């Protein structure tokens, strides 16, 4: 185990045509944190997440995961590095041709280390972890509800025992009760597996309930990276409107009660 931060972003700049999304953005996330990335629509949250995953490359700047650039070295080394993080995409991104069991087991079968019996054990354990019943194993993604899709996708992202979990809008599209259940699930996983979690979210309830730190993306850079209480003290128009709105105040009140 190295002590390098889970994620280091240095001087990230991103452009889409003439539209500048990030400019000289920097952020360092220590291991074990549970970080919410917030920002207005079109502020480049998902783009930043895609830089971290290595799906896109910034026009300038460096992305380091566990102290190493993601795209260094040969294909095997890159793959090794990618296995250290799991990603939950916004729509789940389940393989629609595979059933639930095959979806969850896919990364393990690709890795080709575990035996078939062990893989089935691990799938059963992951399904239990995300509160899916064993009889759901043979369902196809098209037969699942939105909440179940997210839980299957979460199980798949956890199956390689990642140290870092990246969640894109984990509670979007879930009803409040499902969303609260999903939040509890992620929090308990964070505590039990000692994961570093980075989530992109719009939902103040999710953010307040989950994060140990909040990174606010505005004006093309990270304007604040701190715990909830310190974030609230930052004098920035986006932060004031984001947390000061009706929904924000209600979420704070609920958080205060708990």
């Amino acid at each position, binding site marked *: 185990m190295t002590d390098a931060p889970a994620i280091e972003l240095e001087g990230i700049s991103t452009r889409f045509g003439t539209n500048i999304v990030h400019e000289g953005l920097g952020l360092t996330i220590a291991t074990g944190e549970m970080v919410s990335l917030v920002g207005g629509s079109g502020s480049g949250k998902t783009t930043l997440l895609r830089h971290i995953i290595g799906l896109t490359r910034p026009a300038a700047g460096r992305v380091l995961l566990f102290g190493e650039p993601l795209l260094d070295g040969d294909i095997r080394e890159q793959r090794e590095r990618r296995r250290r993080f799991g990603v939950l995409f916004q729509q789940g991104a389940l393989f629609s041709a595979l059933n639930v069991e095959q979806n969850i087991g896919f990364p393990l079968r690709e890795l080709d*280390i575990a035996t078939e019996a062990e893989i089935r054990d691990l799938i059963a354990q992951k399904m239990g972890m995300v509160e899916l019943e064993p009889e759901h194993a043979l369902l196809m993604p098209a037969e699942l509800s939105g909440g179940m899709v997210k839980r299957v996708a979460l199980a798949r992202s956890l199956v390689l025992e990642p140290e870092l979990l990246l969640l894109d809008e984990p509670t979007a599209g879930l009803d409040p009760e499902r969303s609260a259940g999903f939040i509890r699930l992620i929090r308990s996983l964070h505590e039990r597996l000692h994961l570093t979690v980075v989530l992109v979210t719009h939902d103040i309830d999710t953010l307040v309930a989950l994060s140990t730190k909040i990174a606010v993306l505005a004006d093309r850079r990270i304007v604040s990276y701190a715990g909830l209480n310190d974030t609230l003290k930052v004098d920035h128009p986006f932060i004031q409107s984001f947390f000061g709105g009706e929904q924000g105040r209600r979420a704070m009140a609920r958080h205060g009660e708990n």
Partner: protein
Amino acid sequence: MQPQREAIPRIETDGVRGGALRLTGDWTLRSLSPCIRRVRRMLNAADASRDWTLEGITRLDSFGATMLWRAWGRRWPERLAIRPEHRTIIDEIARSTAAPLPTPAPYDIADLLVVIGRAVFGFGNHALDFVRLIGQLCIDLLYLLRYPREWPLREVSANVFKVGVKAMPVAALVGFLIGVVLSYLSALQLQAFGADIFIVNILGLGIIRELGPVLVSILVAGRSGSAMTAQLGVMRVTEEIDALAAMGISRSLRLVLPKVIALSLAMPLLVLWTSGIALLGGMLSAWVQMDLSPGFFIETLPTVVPIANLYIGLAKGLVFGFLIALVACHFGLRVKPNTESLSTNTTASVVSSITIVILVDAVFAIATRSIGVPL
């Protein structure tokens, strides 16, 4: 990155047969991966009846836990020393694997019957759907006759451009090469009999009546038919078709009809274009190969190939275009929201439209056997 030295998973024995086993290091997926064979060998040699000391394990994840649980024969060893946090991990594996995951039922003879039955009913279902689509198009046409302002003219025009104009270069290239090849091969045979000038008859009849329409149909089925199926399929996946229906806009009127009309219009023109280019290729080849002057070729063509052949070729183009678009839309609307269904339906669309075109071409050949053939 290599795991550090103390993190390598190890199994140490006392050296005595049946003695205690001490497990140390990281028992995680990452650190087990490089030495999985060695660890498996040692675990296989061990059994649950020995003394297991797991207190030296620094990190344990569910993969390591599964390996141990399997090595123990899915029960706790009698003599086990383990940290409590690691015990909970193994305990979780034990609990979640108590009830095995369901497996799909294996195939047997009865399933064969089911497969055949499904295929038969599936075909019936397809036929029914196809007839329904044609019926819907007729209703749409009647509706448009009553409300002529609602003709989807812009869509038709856009589709004519997409399936017709944009297909011209590739159709020309294929047509030209086929004309050259056909002319060259026929010339070799004809020269042997001294029947050089019949090259005009062969090329004229063959290309205008038969080869032009079929060639273009196969090209268009592969090019535009597949595109139509995929487009409608993805629109179904992304619920765009439902959105149209929710706005009260008929999907057949706005999506299917323009495609069918556009392809029925564009195909005869494409046939004309391709046949013309193919004849040009044949003519040039005959000039080079047999010294048959283009002037003579052009002069002879109308006298040996009755004009009825051109009409048959154009009629074929229209019918084939209509069928290709209809088949493509039929399969496109049957796509279910998953990738597998999209690929199956696109394949089925192209294969069916080519097959149907060739079948209908045979029907044409029989129906028009006494028309346009000089005796």
